[in-house]
Structure formats: structure tokens, C-alpha cells
């Protein structure tokens, strides 16, 4: 018998669900059962789910209820179900990396993020679909995962974005209240924007990658996708921190009380020059409307120049060199040909012959990029731009053939990733084919509290994050 929680509950924020659990208006078991039911019924329709963890999730939910009834709470995530991108190791479940050669892969340990969330009382209900090996070596269409193209809950003829595809789709469709994704260069911001959810890419070193598939050690980040920016802060507070198993992590504290606008202070916001050039008109209009809202509590400087540095070549060379090292056995053995994306075979083989000096030159260039961006961002609390230049790509066409003429503005995503800076995308409207658009806040390293406060203030003034996609048809219907 399906659980009887209404949509208002299933699409509620984590903070709201936590309050209902604390006051025992709902139980963790009821909540978990309801999301499991949706994951099993709706998940296949969206190709969003790889593994549903029914047994372990219900066991943990029963324990959470028992603890809550006994007056013991581990915090706001206690008893809250969530999903994890299938590149995070979780003991007892397959960890497929979205790729056929790894579909039976298991690990005997939990990724640090999974462990931290378990310690916080959150309940892992599903491993979520992703682009195979996180899109390393390139892909040009949505059918780049062994679980099939992840469909956008707002319009299933369109892609959910990637590489954290299932994480974006599952949150948007109300299959989980929050999910964990990862980003090397765009893989959280893109599905967040395409699916109309809030997605936070933390500063490099804020969150441990231990137990996560590596694509690029110097670029990979783990972060949350949620309904609200406030929820992103709550989840980040649970997963952030130094981890002896990941040398890139630093011991910086991060706490997240409900973000509120500091009294008597207006934010200094910059608009990146050229960020509305070459983008879809609806994306531009939504961005312009968002700026009007932000103008209520921000001093906005228009036309801020983004440094003209070779972000594209550098990020490409770094990902290829590090990815080739990570997947050397897969490439040399020829098993890379088992991937859905046929072109990865040649591209990865080419990466095997990338001269070390070219890789090092790219890494030296990053040092200069970091300095240039640090200098730029020192003058602002955040810079804003559209998260993506178009709405989601159609499932049935190559990306390169869709939306011809909309080439996008400055390279904010590779720039921010190369510099290790945080970014946050929140929904700011809809474009063609009833698909969401995103507003991206970017800031200097470790500025997550400011980005979260800004986005939270924006969401207090708007309703886009409260919109729900149409009820999806069930698998087989």
C-alpha cells in the first residue's frame, strides 16, 4: 500500500521536513517509504536511478524514528532521505560510475560524504544516475550513461543535464528531498539549472572526495543539489571539513544557520560583461528580471570584465591528463570501448599521449588564473550570470547541433572550476518548452556563506524554487 504523504510534503524543503520530523507530525519511515515508492515508480521513467536501497533505508529510518521518539536528534538531517550520485562508494551497494564496465563494481567502504551524512542521521535511499565516468574525454548527447539518457522532469523529451544527471532529476521530480552530486567543470551547476533546482559547487578542498570516483584530482568537487539554497547550506554543513583521507581538504569550519541578510548592509554584486550575449532570449529575459529582484538588496555594478585567459584549453588539458591517468587500465585494455560514448575510445587514447610538459604548463597557467580571479572577486560579494546559455538540450539530438547560434558568454564555469571557487545556481524562470533556467552566483574561494545568503534572499523574494514539474507518467505507462 503506497504511503499517503501529499505532494506538499514530498516537495518540501529539508528544513521544513526536519521541523515536521522533530515535532513528530511525520515519521522518517513514512517519509522514506514515500520517497522509495516514487523512486521505484517514477525513477525509471526518468532514467534517474541506478539502485534503490529499500531495505537498508527502511532499517535506518526505523532507527531514526526510535531515536527521535527517545528525544535524541543528530541534527536537522536526522531521518531525512537522500540520494547520491553513483560515483560515491557506499558499502553494500553497487557503485557503477554510470558506465557499463563498472556496473558490477562494489566497494567495502563508504565515501566520506556518505559516512558524514549517515553520522548526521540522513538516510541513503538511492544511488542516482550519472554520465559515464562523469563525462571524462567528452560526450555530445544525452545517451552517455549505461542507464540511458536522464530525462528532465519538466519535459521528458529533454535532458536533465550532467554529469550529475540523476541528482538533478531526482530532486526536481520529488524523488528525494536532496541529493549529492559532483563537479569537475559544470556537473552540478548544469543539472541544477536545467532541472530547476538549487545546486552548490563548494570551494575546492571544502568537501572530501575520499570514496568518490576520481576524474581530475585537481578539479573534482562534491556538493549538494536541493530545493533551496538554504537546504544547500544545511547539507554542506554536514559534509564539509578536513578529512585525513583526502589531502586536498582543509580544516575550515562551515556552519549554516538559516541564512539571513545582514542588517544594514547591502551586497556588492557584479554583473559579468557579455554574460547575456549569445544566449537564448528567454534566458536573457529571466536574468534581467532576476537582476531587478537582486537590486532590492544589492548594489549592482554592471559590465564587470572577466579576465581573458585560456580557461578552455587549460581545463581540457588538465581533465584529459588526469583522466587518462585515472582510467589508464580501462584505456590501455581497450575496455573503454564498452562505454556508450564511442568517441571516448579515441579521445582517451589521445590523452594517453599528452606530453607531461603540456599538462604542467596548464597547471602553471592555473596559478595565474587564480590570482586574476581572486583580484577580481575581491571587489564584490559575488558575480552573477545566467547559469547556462540555453535551456536543457533535447534528448534526440547531438548537443553540438542543438541551439545553433547560442554560443554563450564568458567562460565562467571553467574559470571558477580552475580557480577552485564556489558557485551556486538557483532557478529563476522558464524558457522554451517549459524548461527551467538558472541564475548563477559565483564568489571567491570560501565565500559559500555569502553566496548562500544572497541566493536565500533571492529565493525569499521569488517563487521559482517552489514550482513543481508536471506529474510524470510511470514506467510502462
Amino acid at each position, binding site marked *: 500500500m503506497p504511503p499517503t504523504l501529499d505532494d506538499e510534503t514530498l516537495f518540501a524543503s529539508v528544513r521544513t521536513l526536519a521541523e515536521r520530523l522533530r515535532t513528530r507530525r511525520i515519521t522518517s519511515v513514512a517519509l522514506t517509504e514515500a520517497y522509495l515508492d516514487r523512486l521505484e515508480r517514477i525513477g525509471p521513467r526518468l532514467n534517474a536511478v541506478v539502485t534503490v536501497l529499500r531495505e537498508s533505508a527502511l532499517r535506518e529510518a526505523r532507527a531514526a524514528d526510535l531515536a527521535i521518539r527517545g528525544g535524541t536528534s543528530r541534527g536537522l538531517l536526522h531521518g531525512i532521505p537522500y540520494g547520491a550520485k553513483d560515483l560515491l562508494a557506499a558499502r553494500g551497494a553497487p557503485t557503477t560510475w554510470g558506465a557499463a564496465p563498472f556496473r558490477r563494481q562494489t566497494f567495502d567502504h563508504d565515501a566520506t560524504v556518505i559516512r558524514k551524512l549517515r553520522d548526521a542521521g540522513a538516510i541513503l535511499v538511492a544511488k542516482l544516475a550519472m554520465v559515464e565516468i562523469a563525462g571524462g574525454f567528452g560526450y555530445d548527447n544525452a545517451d552517455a550513461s549505461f542507464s540511458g539518457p536522464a530525462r528532465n522532469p519538466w519535459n521528458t523529451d529533454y535532458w536533465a543535464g550532467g554529469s550529475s544527471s540523476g541528482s538533478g532529476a531526482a530532486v526536481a521530480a520529488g524523488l528525494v528531498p536532496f541529493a549529492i552530486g559532483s563537479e569537475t567543470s559544470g556537473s552540478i551547476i548544469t543539472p541544477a539549472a536545467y532541472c530547476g533546482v538549487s545546486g552548490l559547487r563548494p570551494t575546492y578542498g571544502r568537501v572530501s572526495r575520499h570514496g568518490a570516483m576520481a576524474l581530475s584530482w585537481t578539479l573534482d568537487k562534491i556538493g549538494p543539489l536541493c530545493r533551496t539554497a538554504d537546504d544547500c547550506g544545511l547539507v554542506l554543513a554536514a559534509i564539509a571539513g578536513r578529512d585525513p583521507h583526502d589531502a586536498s581538504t582543509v580544516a575550515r569550519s562551515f556552519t549554516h544557520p538559516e541564512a539571513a541578510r545582514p542588517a544594514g548592509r547591502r551586497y556588492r554584486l557584479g554583473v559579468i560583461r557579455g554574460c547575456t550575449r549569445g544566449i537564448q532570449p528567454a534566458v536573457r529575459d529571466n536574468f534581467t528580471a532576476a537582476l531587478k529582484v537582486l537590486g532590492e538588496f544589492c548594489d549592482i555594478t554592471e559590465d564587470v570584465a572577466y579576465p581573458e*585567459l585560456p580557461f578552455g584549453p587549460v581545463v581540457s588539458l588538465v581533465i584529459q591528463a588526469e583522466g587518462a591517468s585515472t582510467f589508464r587500465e580501462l584505456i590501455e585494455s581497450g575496455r573503454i570501448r564498452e562505454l556508450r560514448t564511442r568517441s571516448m575510445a579515441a579521445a582517451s587514447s589521445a590523452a594517453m599521449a599528452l606530453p607531461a610538459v603540456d599538462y604542467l604548463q596548464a597547471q602553471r597557467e592555473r596559478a595565474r588564473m587564480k590570482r586574476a580571479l581572486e583580484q577580481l572577486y575581491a571587489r564584490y560579494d559575488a558575480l552573477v550570470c545566467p547559469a547556462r546559455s540555453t535551456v536543457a538540450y533535447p534528448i534526440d539530438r547531438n548537443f553540438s547541433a542543438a541551439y545553433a547560434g547560442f554560443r554563450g558568454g564568458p567562460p565562467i564555469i571553467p574559470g571558477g572550476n580552475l580557480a577552485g571557487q564556489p558557485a551556486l545556481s538557483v532557478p529563476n524562470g522558464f524558457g522554451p518548452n517549459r524548461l527551467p533556467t538558472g541564475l548563477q552566483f559565483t564568489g571567491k574561494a570560501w565565500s559559500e556563506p555569502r553566496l548562500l545568503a544572497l541566493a536565500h534572499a533571492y529565493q525569499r523574494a521569488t517563487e521559482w524554487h517552489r514550482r513543481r514539474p508536471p506529474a510524470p507518467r510511470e514506467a510502462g505507462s
Partner: protein
Amino acid sequence: MSAQTPRRRFLKALAAGAAVPLLPASALAQEEPREPAPPDAAAALTAVARSRCRWLTDAHAKEVRQDIARNLRLADALRRAQPAVTDEPAFVFAADVPEGG
């Protein structure tokens, strides 16, 4: 669908960030030099790739060579940057062993 991706389009996407959604395609279009990479360098590196990936067919090798030529052009784009002597790579070696081993 993947196999039908026009090679040139795919390479453009790849250079724009190793995955299409990773980067706006415009980023690289402006930065990538137009002149072809030295053919002998691409050929030599293709031989390296073939020696490491012995499963590569002649058809694969043609694609690999195109990808390598593109990587060389990307690397050439960085030559103009002239980093300072003090610009160390953006990762650091630490002598101490991490606590976790």
C-alpha cells in the same frame, strides 16, 4: 547516437571542456589558434598512443591523430601565456604523509 557524432563537432565540444556541458562552447572557439599543429609531432604522439593502446585499429588511429593534433593546438594556445618563473603548477607536493596513509 554517439557513434554518429560528427568528428569535428565532437572535437569542438571536447576542447570546450572534456564534456559538452562542462563548458560553454564559445570559450575555446575564441582561444584556439587556427593554424594546424606540426604533423610530425601528431604522428609521433599517435605512435605513442598506439604502443600503449594496442587495440587501436587504423580507423581508430586516424581519430586519435586528430584528437592529438587538437591537443597540440590547445597546448600551443598556452605558449603565448608565458608564465612567470614563480608560477608553480597549481598543486603542491607535501613532504608529510597524510594521516589516513
